[in-house]
Structures are given as C-alpha cells and as structure tokens.
C-alpha cells in the first residue's frame, strides 16, 4: 500500500445548497454555469480515467491533479481524496467509481474542463472499470516504474483499447531508488506496443512530471463530440442514494443540453422526474444551471428507488425526448455466491434493511432470501468476486452494525436433468439435485493471466495443476518476468487461489481473469453430516477426484472445532449415501467448577453466565451446538 490517509474528515459529498435556497447566484445566470468560471466550450472539455494496477499510484496521482488544478485547496487536502469510504482507505483500493471536475489553465493560456472519472483497481471490479471508461475519450495508464507491468495493467489497457480510448502512458514512482524506467519502457513497447517517446516519467508523490500529464491530457485526448442542440441523451454510469436528493445519478451527456428545470425521463424504466439539481463534482457536488453534450456530472432525480434509475439507462428530457437510448451496459454479472446470515436470528430484519440500503450504493451485488437448517434465515447473495464479497460483508457489518456469518462461496453451476426434464442453474450446493437426477453438470471456467518473476514459474504451474488448471502459454515481458496463461474452473479460483498465488511468489505475482464459458465436469456434491444430520451450510460441490481429500480435511477440521458435547458426535463426509470420511468428537466428560465457596459465588456466577452466552452464540444442528468459528474455519480451508 502507498501512503495512508488520516481519518475521514473531508466532506466528499457535502450538502451543497440548491439554487433558490440561498446558493451563490451568479449575476448573469446561464452565462456562468460553474461557480468558478465561464462556460467551457465543448472543444475544451476532456473526459479521462486513470487506470492502473493496484498500488501503482493511481489515487496519489489523482490527489496531485486535484491539487495542481486547485480543485481541492491545500487545507482540505488529504490523501486518497477520491476514496471516501473508510474501507477504501484502509485497503488502499478504490471500490466505487468517482468523478471529479478539474479546471486547468493550459500552457496555451486557455482554461480547459477536465473530467476525471476514477476507476476501481481490483480484478473483481473490471465491470465498473469498463463502465467508467465508456464515459471517457482517454485514459492515463499508470505503471509503477519499479514493479513494471502487472496483470491488472494488461487487463485495463485491453479494456481501454476496446473502448477506443487514447492512452497516456505514465511511469510513476521514478523517484524510487529501485525504479527502472528503461526496463519498464521496454516492457510497454514489447508487450503493449506503446512507443517509449509517448511515456511520461513522473512521481505523483513529489509532483515530478504531473504538469506534463495535465498538458498531455489537453493535447492528446480528443474533446468529446456530441450535439448540444440535439435531444438529450445522457448515460448513467454510476449512482448513489442521498436521503435528501433521492437517487443521484452520475451521467455522461452524449447529446443535448440538460437544464436545471427540466423534467427528465429514464428511457428504460420509463420513470419521469422533475430534476432537483444538476451539477459537477469538485469533488463535492456543486450545482450548476445546465449540463451540455460532452459533460460529465450528476443529476439529483429525487427518485426513491435505484431501480427507476439504473446504471446503464439513458436519461432524456421529457419536453423533447430522444427516440433511441444509448447502447448502455451489460448487467453486472455475479460470479461468486454465498449465503449471508445474521449471527443471531433476531437480526434478520436488520440484515434485510441493510442489504436494501447498501444495494442503493452498490447495485453490483444481488440478494434474495434463503433459509438454512444450520444457519436459519438469511440471504443468498451474488458478488463480482471474492474481494467484492468480503467488502460487502464488511460494509454490512460496519455500516449497519451487524454480525454476519457467510456460507462457503460457490459459483453458479448449470445442471442438465435426466430424461430431458430441462436444465437449472444452481448457486447453492445444498440445492443440487441428487446424483440420479443429473445428466450433466457444467461449471464456469476462466482464463487466467499471471504476471510473475520467472523464478516462480514452477511453483505456479504446480499451483494451477492442483487446481485443475490447464497451461495455455507464456510470454516473457523482460528477461526476469513472464506472463503466464492458464485456464481453470472458477470454483478452484475462488477458494483461496489469490492468497496462494501471493504466498508462493512472496507477493510478486499478480493476476487477472476473464470468463471463458461453461464446461462439463465430473462434479459431486459433498455433504457434511454432524450426528447424522446434514449441515446444509457446509455442503459443497467438488470434483470427484478431490472429494476424498476434501472430505477428510473437512471432517478433521470440524473435529478440531466442534467442542465436545454431552454425547459422542460422529462427523461424516458423504456423497449421497456413501460415507467417504468419518471422525468422532468424543463425549464431554467434565465441565465443573471445582471450588465454590463464599468468595467464589459472584465470580463463578459470572463465569456461568459467560458459558451461557457462549452457548447462545452457537448454532444448533439437531442437538449439537456448533460455534460460528467452525463454519468460518471451514470457509477458510484451502489446500495448503
């Protein structure tokens, strides 16, 4: 991680008064559309993103651009300005896309409007990256001058090229003693065909090269095109919910001019709303009178449901609507599924409300009610990836003060039933039909790109083989580093592949993956039975060859974790009725307070109360009490 921010004190989304409620009114109204300067004509607008591998300095560069253009004054400046979520600051990653309007007076003496649209940097969020990129004409590609190209660098560049964006390559951190700009420029040239003369050498930390980056934005990135007098077409690329302003959507205006008194129509949902406010991000919301073709800004819709103003929908003006919407986006696709359950059953309504509220700000996860014998009532949730799952769980726990338990993550299987009775999608192993009803099971595969020092090739080959991976090929980035390509079932990737990748390469390797369709596989459902009762939350789908090993590991681990009960408890792993592994938790023999005299009574009562609380926190399977930790530990189990 790079530099860490202090406490979150900067009001990123401070409530700015709307015009008419005491806002700074400009004397000549529409002529001044920003509080700080005149209307900037379309040819002086530039819309761009910064793309980078995690930790290569994206957020620091964004901070520097904000500072240099006086968008954020020094006294308000803190690191990672655009990462307003505590979680983002702690993890040093960007989770949500953000946008900010910079005003920059270039060396030609003219003032340009630069819209920086921030992008998340983790593989799970490439969907959000591509959304952001569609609102841009250019992208700054930040590469760490010491680390060189990483997997995410490649993935992001490919996304940007797919969108036809102009790329400004920047070698960051050239102030580091370990920086090797020559080597990395060679890599860029060989692997991405980026000519070295286009590369800007910079240090976002000390400011070196940042003015050149601003000039390059103006010179190299084309202005947006689009007809300001045509009917309004604005693409929603993100949204958040504000309790006063309703759904606030982030838009890129493709055509037309949107006025602050317009009634808007959402072309897909057909919802109409009198818009409450529109404006720019600086980075807090600053209201303006109009947004014109090519601009990036926000529209406060007053709508109460994000479903009425979904990301990817097109906004038009009701008075002169456009006939066709913009192409929009593919819907975010959940790849990883898990059940989220409240630790104590009475928190279920709280969890439901929390999911609803969180979903307003993160529409990329899905949730629907489910119930489990072991865990009670909860929700089956779909996530973009494991990190996304971790983040959603953590946000629910922190922002809504919930204690949650998650079942083992799963992918979505496709099951073709026997006797032509159709097919179904299964994302919860407990719901897999019995063996006799299944004709074929198919599982999702991914192609995997790993960038690693070449000394770890052997270790990574071994890792991917153990995960049913197939080697596709490799390419040397430079004499020391190599790009490896594998194919692998997604289910094998989501267990703890990333952790294993990092630990087997001392943290040097990076990875990225893309979906590669469904393939049939010899998969079985492995059930875990505690005292003869199946624990639905622990059921998992695994390859038949791996089932005995997984079954043994599961039962051994559970034996360690399930405390002794008043009776002997058998733990079994079974495929159908065929038990493939068994352990026994012996009966408890002794749980007694040896001494209980006058001075012990208060103390011992407290001890008993603690034991009672401990029991209440346990989940019951039949008559067996299982601590939450057992489920969590099984979740974390991987092959070591």
């Amino acid at each position, binding site marked *: 991680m790079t530099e860490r921010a202090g406490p979150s004190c900067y009001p990123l989304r401070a409530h700015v008064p709307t015009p008419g409620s005491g806002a700074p009114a400009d004397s000549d109204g529409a002529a001044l559309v920003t509080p700080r300067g005149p209307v900037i004509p379309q040819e002086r607008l530039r819309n761009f993103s910064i793309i980078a591998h995690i930790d290569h300095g994206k957020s620091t560069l964004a901070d520097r651009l904000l500072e240099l253009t006086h968008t954020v004054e020094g006294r308000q400046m803190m690191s990672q300005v655009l990462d307003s979520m505590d979680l983002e600051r702690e993890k040093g990653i960007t989770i949500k896309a953000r946008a900010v309007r910079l005003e920059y007076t270039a060396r030609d003496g003219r003032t340009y409007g630069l819209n920086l649209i921030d992008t998340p940097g983790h593989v799970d969020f490439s969907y959000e990256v591509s959304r952001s990129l569609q609102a841009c004409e250019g992208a700054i590609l930040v590469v760490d001058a010491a680390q060189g190209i990483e997997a995410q660098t490649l993935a992001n560049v490919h996304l940007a090229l797919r969108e036809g964006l102009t790329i400004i390559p920047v070698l960051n951190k050239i102030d580091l003693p370990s920086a090797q700009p020559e080597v990395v420029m060679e890599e860029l040239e060989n692997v991405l065909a980026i000519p070295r003369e286009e590369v800007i050498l910079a240090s976002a930390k000390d400011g070196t090269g940042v003015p050149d980056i601003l000039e390059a934005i103006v010179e190299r990135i084309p202005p947006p095109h689009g007809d300001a007098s045509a009917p309004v077409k604005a693409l929603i690329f993100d949204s958040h919910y504000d309790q006063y302003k309703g759904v606030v959507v982030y838009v890129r205006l493709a055509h037309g001019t949107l006025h602050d008194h317009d009634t808007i129509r959402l072309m897909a949902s057909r919802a109409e709303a009198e818009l409450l406010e529109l404006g720019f991000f600086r980075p807090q919301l600053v209201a303006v009178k109009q947004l014109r073709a090519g601009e990036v800004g926000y529209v406060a819709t007053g709508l109460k449901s994000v479903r009425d103003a979904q990301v990817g929908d097109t906004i038009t003006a009701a008075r002169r609507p456009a006939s066709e919407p913009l192409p929009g986006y593919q819907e975010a696709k959940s790849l990883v599924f898990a059940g989220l359950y409240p630790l104590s059953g009475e928190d279920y309504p709280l969890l439901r409300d929390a999911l609803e509220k969180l979903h307003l700000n993160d529409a990329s996860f899905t949730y629907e009610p489910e119930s489990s014998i072991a865990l009670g009532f909860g929700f089956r949730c779909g996530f973009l990836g494991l990190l996304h799952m971790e983040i959603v769980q953590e946000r629910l726990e922190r922002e809504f003060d919930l204690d949650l338990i998650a079942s083992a993550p799963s992918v979505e299987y496709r099951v073709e039933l026997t006797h032509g009775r159709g097919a179904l999608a299964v994302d919860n192993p407990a719901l897999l039909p019995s063996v006799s009803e299944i004709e074929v099971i198919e599982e999702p595969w991914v192609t995997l790109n790993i960038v690693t020092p070449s000394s770890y090739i052997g270790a990574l080959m071994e890792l991917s083989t153990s995960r049913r991976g197939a080697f596709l090929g490799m390419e040397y980035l430079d004499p020391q580093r190599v790009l490896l390509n594998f194919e692998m079932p997604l289910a094998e990737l989501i267990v703890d592949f990333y952790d294993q990748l990092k630990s087997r390469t001392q943290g040097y390797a990076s990875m990225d993956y893309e979906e590669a369709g469904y393939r049939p596989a010899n998969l079985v459902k492995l059930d875990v039975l505690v005292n003869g009762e199946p624990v639905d939350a622990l059921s998992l789908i695994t390859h038949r060859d791996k089932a005995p090993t997984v079954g043994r590991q599961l039962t051994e681990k559970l034996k360690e974790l399930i405390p*002794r009960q*008043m009776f002997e408890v058998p733990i079994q792993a079974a495929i159908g009725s065929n038990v493939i592994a068994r352990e026994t938790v*012996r009966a*408890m*023999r*002794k*749980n*007694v*307070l*040896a*001494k*209980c*005299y*006058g*001075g012990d*009574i*208060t*103390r011992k*009562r*407290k*001890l*008993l*109360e603690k*034991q*009672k609380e401990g*029991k209440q926190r346990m989940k019951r399977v039949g008559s067996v009490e299982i601590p939450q930790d057992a489920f969590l530990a099984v979740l974390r189990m991987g092959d070591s």
Partner: protein
Amino acid sequence: MEPDATEVPVPRPPVGLYVHVPFCVSLCPYCDFVVLAGAAARGPRSRLASFVSALATELELRADRLDGAFGPPGSAGRPALASVYFGGGTPTLLPAGEMASLLARVRERYGIVPGAEITVEANPGPAERGDPAGLARAGVTRLSVGAQRMDRAELRRLGRRHDPDDVADAVRAARGGGIGSIGLDLLYDIPGDSGAAWASTLDRALALAPDHLSLYALTLDDPGAEGLTGPAGDHLPTTAGARRWRERSRPQQDEDRAAEQYEHAVERLAVAGFDGYEISNWAQPGHASRHNLIYWRGDAWEAAGPGAHAFDGRTRRWNAARLDGWTAALAGGPGRAPALPPGGHEEVGATAAAAERVVLALRTERGVPAAVASVPPLVDALRWALDAGLLTTTADDRVVLTTRGRLLSNELFSRLV
C-alpha cells in the same frame, strides 16, 4: 433454607464469620487467593502484627454495624455464630495466643453458640503448621490441612515445599493436640498426573484417617483477565512466574483423565465410609463442614480481612484485596478515625438470586425439593438435566446431581443462571 424464586430477599444477621489471613511462607503458582509471602509473612519485617491489629478493628467496626442493624449478640434478632472460619493464606502462621484473643473478641462482639465449628486452615510444613494444641485450647475444633498430594515429586511439581511425611506429622500433632475434626485438601489433574498416581495419593491420605476430604481438580485461572485485580478488586495480580507456570501446565491437563480420577474418588471414598456431601467435599458422618454449608444453603455470613467476601442474604460484599489499603483504612491516622476498608458489593436481583440458590443447593447432596424443579423459569433446564441423566429424583422427593451430573454440572448450571 430452601430455594424459592418468589421470595424477596431481606438482610439477615450472620450465622457464620469468615476471617482471611493473607500470609504464606511461599506462594504456590496455581493459587488465586489473596496471599503475601516472604518477608511480609515471616521475620523482622513481618506484617502480621499490624495485620492482627487492623483485623481486630475491622471485627469491631463490623460488629458495631450489626449491633445497629439487628441488635446486640444474644438478642432476639441476632443469633450467635454457629461457625467461625480462619482461611488463607496460612492462618496457622498467627501465634495461637493471637488466635485466642481474636476468638475472645469475636465471642464477645458476635456471640458463638456452644459446640460451634471453629475452623483454621493449615499448611503441613514444620514452619507453618503452628501449634495445634494451643489452637485447640483457644477453641478451634477443626483443622483443614493443605496436603495436596502424598508424593514428594508431585508436590515439588506443584511448587509445594512440604513432604508427605509432614502431612502425617501435622495430622498426628492435631489429633494429639485435641483438634476434633481434621480435613485434608487434595489436588488431581495436575501436570504429569495419572490414574495410578492419584489412586496412591488418595490411599495414602485415607491411611491418615482424616475426617474430611476436599478434592479439587487443579484449576488454572487468570483473575486479571476476569477483571478482578484492579485497585478495588478482590484478587491480587498474578505474578509473572505463576502466570508462566499456569501457561505451561494448562496443556498438561486432561479432561478424560480428570473425569476418571473423580469417578475413582467417588467409588474409593464410598468404600471408605465417606459421604460426598458436595461436588468437591467428602466427610465421615458428622464431619461435614458446617461453615461451607452456610455458603451453599444461602445463609448469611460476615467476613473480615483483605479480599474476604460476606453475604447478608441480599447483598454480596467484599473487601479489596490489597493489604496496604485495607490496613490504612482500619488503622486510621491523625484526625482520621479508623474506617471500614475499601471494597465492592453486588445486589443480586430476585431472579438471579433464585437461580444462584438452586445452583448452590444442587452442588450439595441434598439438592433441591422436586417441587422447585417444576417452577418456571428453571423448569426447562432442570427437566433437560433429568432427561440427560445429570439429575435424579431421590426417594424423599428431592432432585440431586448424579455422579455424571456433578462432573458436567456447568452444563446444567449455565442453563440456570
């Protein structure tokens, strides 16, 4: 007193008195009691003299309060004490003469019924066992000896200095001195323990013909972690050495072994004619500790000395553990009258108090009347325990723990609190 959930507790006068004497020749690494050792306990810098004087003051001040609340001893509302118990520490480090004058003051200010049980805890080493004949003359009727084990190597492993022969000598001296009831404390589930080693300790202890046996599974607690060692806490902080010893010993304990050792003791002591009248206590007929029964029956008792706990039927009160603060308050000073020492108290709500009474009563062989087991809110837990074989109903319609129930009693008790 029988437990009754509907009863509203009112303060009652004490029928027993506990006096804590916080000195030992050396500290045992497993012991959590309030104890000072070394120079504080023996020699020219010993703090025994100032302790005795402060103790006398506390006994007076506490008696004054009881006089105010219940009238003078012997009056209708103020029964004389049926039991006085000197615990420690090693109370036998106090000279027998001091003990005699303390008891005389207690008799005067609290009253002591004829035939009362007057217990002193003792350690068996020659330098610490005191003068049993002198104690007997002072009125002491019962000696509780910390034998722990009857094997030299095992005693060393426990950090004890005495030898098994010392235990025999102490018992002999007590008998010869005229102490009428002698108890031994023993420990099982110690590091490196075995069934055979335990059986041998038990046999060698029985060979000394004790009247009473307390058998404790070694318990390695951390009072600091329980929040009991603060300035007003009733425990002293555990020393670093003791902490290390406990950490080393914990993995050497074994639940199954301990259960087998307990079960062995139950059988062996029944054969020897002992009555297991409480989870950890066995006695020959007529030798059950009347003092400890006060605790388990929910009767009221008074207490004095650092870290000592008292109960008046409604409020549990304790003195802070630190000797300095305790002594300073009681000694008074220029312009400052002697005052009761710092400490804490706790009033247990009616429901919790009822549960507590059931838990304590179930620790004893008398258990609770079957009628109690059918009253909410305890009925579910008690029915569960009957079904699980932890409880059984006796011929005289009482509900008591089975042997298995004693070993697993927390499984029931944690459902009752």
